[in-house]
């Protein structure tokens, strides 16, 4: 048997289970109608779930984009300081973020498509629910004729098939959302661990090194100035004391420590 026959039979089997539920087809009509209303509710919740999942991915992407921009700035800063090692580290991290962003974009597109499909499906279901509500009352009134009974069965099978189809779509969407949520959670953990840089965390060490890169030349210059004053200048105690006062005001610790060493050598 071909695939489409097998596929169809499964749907038919489902629909006939609904038909067998009550002996009186009029009761089956009411039962089916209640089920479609429930299904419509479930469908709306499922659409909301997909939208929530999509928004979470959007937030993560924004966060990653901020991190990437920050790392880019740090890489530039590092290059301007001739710190190729730091620039390399910043760019490597940015690269890892770019990979994650590409992955997120793909997930986002998938969810967006899923959302659009579900919105369409719920609109179709809504149209059927409205039309079924009107028809079921007419059918119940005319139920006595054998022909009417056939129509009732047809309508119930039809609505049952629609429910099966919507149910299948919903299940697929739920599976996808669950999958995405697991991946989002994993990404959150990755960001929190600092393995993937999150702007506020592991880049601090990188930033500290870069800041030191700016501070160090100033400290070196101070040191050189002190050395110059000590070796080139007069050796009187009074003059020795003066640079010592200067060094105390210098930003780094090494300078004051240097002065006594110079003194000992003398």
């Amino acid at each position, binding site marked *: 048997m071909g695939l489409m026959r097998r596929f169809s039979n499964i749907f038919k089997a489902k629909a006939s289970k609904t038909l067998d539920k009550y002996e009186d087809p009029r009761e089956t009509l009411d039962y089916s109608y209640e089920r479609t209303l429930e299904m419509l509710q479930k469908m709306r919740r499922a659409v909301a779930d997909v939208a929530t999942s999509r928004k979470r991915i959007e937030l993560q992407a924004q966060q990653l984009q901020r991190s990437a921009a920050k790392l880019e700035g740090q890489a530039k800063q590092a290059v301007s300081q001739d710190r190729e090692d730091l620039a390399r580290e910043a760019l490597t991290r940015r690269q890892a973020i770019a990979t994650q962003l590409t992955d997120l974009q793909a997930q986002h597109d998938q969810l967006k498509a899923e959302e659009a499909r579900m919105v369409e499906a719920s609109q179709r279901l809504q149209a059927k629910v409205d039309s079924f509500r009107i028809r079921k009352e007419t059918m119940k009134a005319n139920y006595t004729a054998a022909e009417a009974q056939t129509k009732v069965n*047809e309508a119930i099978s*039809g609505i049952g*098939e629609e429910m*099966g189809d919507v149910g*299948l779509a919903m299940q697929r969407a739920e599976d996808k959302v669950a999958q995405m949520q697991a991946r989002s959670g994993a990404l959150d953990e990755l960001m929190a661990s600092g393995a993937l840089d999150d702007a506020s965390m592991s880049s601090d060490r990188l930033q500290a090194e870069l800041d030191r890169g700016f501070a160090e030349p100033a400290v070196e210059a101070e040191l050189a100035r002190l050395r110059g004053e000590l070796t080139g200048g007069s050796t009187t105690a009074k003059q020795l004391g003066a640079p010592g006062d200067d060094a105390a005001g210098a930003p780094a610790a090494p300078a004051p420590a240097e002065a006594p060493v110079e003194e000992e050598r003398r």
Partner: protein
Amino acid sequence: MIVRISGEGQFEVPDGHVDELNRLDDDLTKAVDSGDDAQFRGALEALLASVRTVGQELPADWIGPSDLVLPSPDATIHEVREVLGDEGLIPG
């Protein structure tokens, strides 16, 4: 004949088109049996395109059973096998 494309809606397809659908269905069945995803995708798309081209889409408020139900356009080979293997997958 009424054909449903899962997740997409129902189409009225002229009875004279059945042979063509059966031919495309053979390709799809072979693809599912072989497990080749690219082949499956191509065969499914061909079958659905044929229904959409020849068939007339039924209005959303039309209520009635289909003679044939086809998998949705983005169904994977894995999903189709799951549905075929376990009818419990279809709620309703």
